[in-house]
């Protein structure tokens, strides 16, 4: 029995490939899965045609074992094409739902033809429709997975690009620098951060450096160590280092880790660190009096 499991489907696919293709595209259009703004008629058609072709090859080979596992060898071709098309579609901005709708739209033309062919054998009809439905669903799920993986890649790429932005060392006042850290501080970046900071200390003849970690979400022992090493290096250069922006939850967590900041000055906010830094270079911020304000 298993050897003729999708027999009729295969027959239909062979006999009327062109008709199925046309009906499929039409159905996809009705289901709102067509993006004429992103793809030309011809591109849309070519993609659908190659999907249909490898689907037929898959059905031909897979009908031998009767199980639908898209990871099987028989579907290698289809998986390849699907990945390719999905990739293309992500790049152009198709939504995941639209991709799934396109694939699911293939059910209609195939079911219609099966119904005609198997009019006299309702049992077989049900059997084939069920199996075919399973196969097409698997196919839609797979494309969704590819879609998600593709998106993740795009996000990761962007993340990498962001990480590569050099960490800016900002001069707040004569001899006062700040380094606002954002995101994560892995070993590689910690090294870069330290280098650019030490360089800036020399160039600007800084006396105080504020390393602000308001934008750092997690401080584990490795990150803490990078911070403390940076502070130690700053001290060796003859400048003072203040670590600011340690939130209460990070402070608590650091205590549990048993991280000892030792001599390093810490401040909860950049604001108080700035006051502190300015005082030590002999500068104060104070409100200007009303006379001066009115005179302006």
């Amino acid at each position: 029995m298993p050897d003729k499991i999708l027999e009729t489907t295969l027959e239909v696919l062979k006999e009327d490939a062109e008709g199925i293709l046309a009906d499929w595209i039409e159905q996809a259009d009705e289901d709102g899965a067509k993006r004429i703004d992103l793809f030309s008629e011809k591109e849309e058609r070519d993609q659908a045609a190659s999907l249909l072709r490898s689907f037929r090859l898959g059905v031909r080979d897979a009908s031998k074992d009767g199980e639908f596992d898209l990871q099987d060898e028989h579907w290698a071709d289809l998986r390849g094409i699907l990945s390719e098309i999905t990739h293309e579609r992500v790049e152009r901005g198709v939504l995941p739902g639209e991709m799934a709708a396109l694939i699911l739209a293939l059910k209609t033309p195939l079911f219609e033809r099966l119904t005609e062919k198997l009019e006299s054998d309702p049992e077989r009809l049900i059997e084939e429709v069920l199996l075919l439905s399973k196969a097409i669903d698997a196919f839609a799920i797979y494309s969704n997975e590819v879609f998600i993986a593709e998106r993740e890649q795009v996000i990761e790429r962007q993340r990498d690009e962001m990480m590569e932005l050099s960490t800016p060392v900002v001069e707040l006042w004569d001899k006062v620098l700040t380094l606002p850290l954002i995101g994560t501080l892995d070993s590689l970046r910690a090294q870069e951060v330290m280098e650019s900071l030490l360089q800036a200390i020399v160039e600007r003849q800084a006396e105080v450096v504020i390393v602000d970690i308001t934008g750092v979400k997690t401080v584990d022992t490795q990150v803490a160590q990078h911070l403390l090493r940076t502070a130690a290096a700053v001290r060796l250069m003859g400048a003072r280092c203040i670590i600011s922006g340690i939130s209460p939850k990070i402070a608590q967590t650091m205590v549990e880790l048993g991280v000892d900041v030792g001599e390093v000055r810490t401040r909860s906010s950049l604001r108080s660190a700035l006051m502190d830094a300015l005082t030590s270079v002999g500068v104060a911020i104070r409100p200007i009096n009303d006379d001066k304000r009115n005179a302006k």
Partner: protein
Amino acid sequence: MVFDEADRIATIELEQDRDVVRARSRVADAMKECGSSELMQTRFVTAVSEVVRNALTHAGGGTLAIYAMPNKRQVGIECRDCGKGIEDIDAAMADGFTTRRGSMGRGLGGAKRLSKTFAIDSSPGKGTTVRMIGACSLR
């Protein structure tokens, strides 16, 4: 500690630094979903960061599985590697013990204190498995 009854919600292969970031944000998401406070999130995410980093730095990589616990107010993780293993677990758990020059040696002890439940299993030459559960709220 077993996660038989728990729902595995993610698996992350740990191969490079960036995977630590992924692991942390996935665990943070899982905790947010069970209504975790920010403090509890920071605590457990930091604990996970420690064991995941250990798998990378001391064992050359591993796999992290994240579980939603049946009572839904807890998140579990299993970090497994096939590295060199730990000779003396008690020593390794002690604060300040490290086999890596310049490292703090406070990761394992810290992870234990930052999680609700902590279990470590290791055999020299075979690998190490750390299982932890983080609570989403104090209580």
